[in-house]
């Protein structure tokens, strides 16, 4: 079984039509059919910074995608933690659905900002993971002044060792060697392999430093890149299977899909 632990469905409030945005999501399912990806764990992102109204609308779309492709799409509930009360209520609303398995946070705040603490503590209470949009870029990213890196996440992981935290896209552009080393400094952090970067040795370096049991296969829209780099990694078949789905199922406390 192969689970893409970092995927998205289209935001319906953009310039594209309803039909076009569903067609793009169908293209992702088609990509899964072509490449052997069984499940996409998807968030829907409203334009940032999101408001309670927009993140609720985004999550409605995520829930609709789960309904449209049962068994192929699981969900992350996306919230802006700056709206603490509304965010906690939204997490409760979405996590009531069986196939919503975690929370997605984007770049509204650094991950170690105290404003995130209620969301982190809620996810600990619900025993669900948080996937964080993450990157360690050489230069500031335009429009992303508060993008977190694995160092922000490691600080929180040390403070909340019971939290299930996923460092997003180590291959998402940026200094992945730095991200791997920073992730390894917090023994409870998980990391996903997604992103368009297919630098040879990336997966092996992550396995060596972080450990195969804390890596999650993912694509974040770069599907052949994601599948190709996991296939190309010189690791044991047991490790490859663990990364492909076993670790994520264990993180969720699920034995099968």
């Amino acid at each position: 079984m192969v689970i893409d632990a970092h995927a998205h469905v289209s935001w319906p409030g953009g310039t594209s039509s309803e039909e076009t945005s569903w067609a793009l999501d169908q293209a992702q399912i088609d990509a899964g059919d072509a490449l052997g990806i069984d499940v996409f764990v998807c968030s829907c992102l409203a334009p940032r910074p999101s408001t309670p109204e927009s993140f609720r609308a985004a999550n409605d779309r995520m829930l609709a995608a789960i309904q449209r492709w049962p068994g192929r799409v699981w969900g992350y509930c996306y919230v802006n933690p700056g709206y603490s009360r509304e965010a906690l209520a939204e997490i409760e609303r979405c996590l009531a659905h069986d196939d919503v398995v975690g929370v997605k946070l984007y770049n509204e705040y650094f991950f170690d900002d105290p404003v995130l603490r209620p969301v982190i503590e809620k996810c600990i209470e619900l025993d669900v993971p948080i996937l964080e949009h993450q990157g360690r870029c050489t230069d500031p990213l335009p429009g992303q002044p508060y993008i977190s890196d694995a160092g922000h996440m490691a600080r929180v992981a040390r403070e909340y060792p019971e939290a299930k935290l996923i460092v997003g896209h180590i291959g998402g552009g940026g200094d992945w060697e730095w991200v791997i080393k920073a992730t390894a400094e917090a023994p409870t952090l998980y990391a996903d392999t997604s992103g368009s970067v297919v630098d040879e040795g990336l997966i092996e370096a992550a396995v060596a430093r972080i450990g195969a049991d804390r890596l999650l296969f993912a694509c974040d829209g770069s599907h052949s890149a994601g599948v190709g780099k996991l296939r190309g990694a010189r690791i044991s078949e047991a490790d490859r299977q663990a990364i492909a789905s076993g670790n994520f199922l264990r993180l969720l406390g699920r034995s099968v899909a």
Partner: protein
Amino acid sequence: MRLIDTNAYLGHWAARRLRHNTPEGLLRLMDRAGIEQAWVSSASAIMYRNCHAGNEELHEALTGAAHQGRLIPFAVISPAYAGWERDLRWCVDTMGARGLRLYPAYHRYRLSDACCHELMQAAAELKLVVSVPQRVEDYRQRHWLIDAPDVGLNELAALVRSHPDTRFLVSNALGVSGSDFVTRRGDMPDNYWVDICRPDVVYGKDAIALIEALGPERIVFGSGIPFNYPEPAVVRMEVLQAQGYDVAAIGSGNARALLS
């Protein structure tokens, strides 16, 4: 499926340790991915001030290796550097170069510079393929001291238009479908090919758009080894094959014809 990799390297990269960067290592990587031949240039030459020293290293590496003609040398030439004409001649006569790779951002010249046009004329006369990578690595992970923006595709298209007798390979590129290579296709001579190192065949389907716009005869296989895993590009070929595209041409036939 037979594969000729039009986008491969030997040598070192200044910002990151490369593995499989010797002839023996690259051949092992090629074997595991089913790549029968690779067009290789010196990765070290990208950062050397005198990039020709990288060509000399490449020649030494290939001369001492048992590769049975599987590694085809490409020269890295900077037309802004003293003596490039003599270096180019050495690369052809001594190293057996079948093509060039250009790194204008690293070697500080513009594709529109007169010296670059002179090099393109020389390439046509010597029947060399001119490969222009849009990037060496993702700019977001650039080394602090390396500030080399991606090659502008429309600037490259203008160079291609100016030299209809020179054959170009647009390599390691994304966004070709939205550039003059496609949008001004009617103004472009049929003298350029594009590799599928980065455009995907699923989801956004950039590679499919390119095949539809340019025709499968203009698309070649390229993986970027050993900077990259070869498998992502191989996976794309497998998907194309399953969808009925002419993978014999894209995988190797077009590249073979380009060098013949």
